[in-house]
């Protein structure tokens, strides 16, 4: 079995007519980390809920760990671990009690149950807090416990819905290391959703960008970045310039694309930034345009996201957050 997760044409409409998923297809290679990106309300959690048997799609099909999510949900449940966006911890229980109950409903008993709980407590650095009620935990500790609970029964496939949201930078790096280790040493297949592009870039072998219930881009981080031809060139001008003049100057430079000029800033793309920069500077000078600074950068996932989702990440976020 090559793909631990496969989904085809998932559609999900909620009561009230919200189309949370509008034909989502995904494939996640066994043993890899897959990143699901997208703004608030894009449908990431809905996809996770369907793949984890919590919710049923209107149409479409999905297979997880080789089992049909709709026909054999019980088999899927045994094979997966899930860390939902909403924690799901019992606040009145201790960390250890949460782990033990989780293990018990998966049929774990006795010494195996207790030693597995202890192992996870140690691994996630929760030893001191393990026997305190979860109500006393910090947000970061709760998130770690969430992941530990999801791993309790040693699942083959792990779903992480925004595992690092709300974590401080240090805790976030810890979580990244843990995710990388799970996928590396333990061979888990991991599907994670996130808002952080750099997180997906660093961890995921492949990723999909979802917007309004559709996959708008899919590939390895490098492929997606490669789709944006070449490097980004960003020039800051000393004085406000007329768009027309500058543009005319730049159009004479070979292999320069996507030119845009706004007030004192100028953006363009080139196959090779290093080769294009001297030509850009020369032609600007010829027009008498004074340059304040030049930067050349490799395309980032932010650029990819902006291009595919067609609107700024922040804009989309705000759109949905409004009640």
């Amino acid at each position: 079995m090559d793909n631990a997760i496969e989904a085809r044409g998932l559609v999900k409409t909620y009561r009230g007519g919200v189309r949370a998923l509008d034909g989502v297809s995904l494939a996640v290679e066994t043993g890899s980390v897959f990143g699901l990106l997208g703004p608030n309300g894009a449908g990431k959690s809905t996809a996770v809920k369907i793949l984890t048997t919590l919710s049923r799609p209107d149409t479409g099909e999905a297979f997880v760990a080789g089992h049909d999510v709709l026909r054999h949900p019980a088999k899927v449940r045994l094979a997966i671990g899930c860390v939902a966006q909403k924690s799901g911890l019992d606040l009145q229980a201790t960390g250890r009690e949460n782990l033990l109950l989780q293990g018990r409903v998966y049929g774990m008993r006795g010494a195996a149950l207790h030693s597995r709980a202890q192992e996870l407590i140690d691994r996630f650095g929760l030893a001191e807090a393990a026997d305190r009620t979860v109500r006393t935990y910090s947000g970061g500790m709760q998130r770690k416990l969430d992941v530990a609970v999801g791993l309790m029964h040693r699942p083959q496939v792990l779903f992480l819905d925004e595992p690092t949201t709300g974590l401080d930078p240090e805790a976030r790096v810890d979580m990244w290391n843990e995710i990388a280790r799970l996928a590396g040493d333990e061979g888990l297949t991991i599907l994670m959703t996130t808002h952080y592009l750099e997180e997906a870039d660093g961890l995921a072998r492949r990723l999909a960008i979802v917007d309004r219930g559709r996959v708008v881009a899919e590939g390895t981080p490098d492929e997606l970045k490669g789709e944006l031809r070449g490097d980004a060139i960003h020039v800051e001008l000393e004085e406000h310039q007329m768009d027309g003049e500058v543009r005319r100057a730049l159009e004479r430079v070979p292999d320069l694309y996507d030119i845009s000029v706004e007030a004192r800033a100028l953006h363009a793309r080139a196959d090779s930034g290093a080769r294009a920069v001297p030509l850009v500077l020369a032609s600007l000078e010829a027009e008498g345009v004074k340059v304040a600074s030049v930067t050349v950068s490799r395309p980032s996932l932010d650029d990819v996201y902006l291009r595919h989702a067609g609107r700024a990440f922040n804009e989309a976020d705000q759109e949905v957050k409004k009640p």
Partner: protein
Amino acid sequence: MTHVISDTLFMTHRHVRNLLRQPAWILISLVQPVVWLLLYGALFRKIVEIPGFGAASYIDFLTPGIVVMTCLFSAGWSGMDLIEDIDRGVVDRFLVSPASRSSLIAGRLVQGALVGVIQSVIIVVLGLIVGAEYPGGIPGIAALTIAAVLLGTAVGALSNAIGVLSRNVETMVAVSNFVLLPLTFMSSVFMARALMPGWMQSIATYNPVEWAVRAGREALAAGPDWSVVLSRMGWLVLFTLVCGWLATAAFRVYQKSI
């Protein structure tokens, strides 16, 4: 099937443990029936003198009523905890696991039943201390407890159904307040049925609270008529099954809405 039972026990364990971690709750649920028994016992002491009341001592009459009322009121709030679990994502976490779906409600009901048994015993003992007599003896007390716990289980299931459908604490409080007290007064918890207005007596015939009180009181009497006790118990069992079915259906509605 064994897995339904073991999961229910695991969930019961969780709920009981969490209750024990709330000292305020323990205190209130122990003190409340005591207050009811002593307060109402003193307040209505003289009504046995009304001709046709049909009991010699009010405390004898009241004790089974308070046992039933206590189980009824505890059960009425059972859905609150479910609302909190849904809000926190606890229910969804178990739905993603192989945990038996019925255990998610059944665990709460078993916890309620255990609490009901303990409360019943406490009230019966307290009644004894303040002078109640139970000619029916241990079998009578057992029957009273079973009737009260059956009623509690049924109402607990209804409460969970309301909780899972409304998913809103305020609605839950409003519905419980609206239903529990009238149900109590339209039964013979405080007042002999013979002295109620005719229309209330008719309603009481269909009131599960009345079934539980009647069964309990009959069983505690000297030379009880067991056919009365068993028929009321039978209706309570039926009522519990219907409520259990309603709770299951309500839970399915929730699952569809995720």
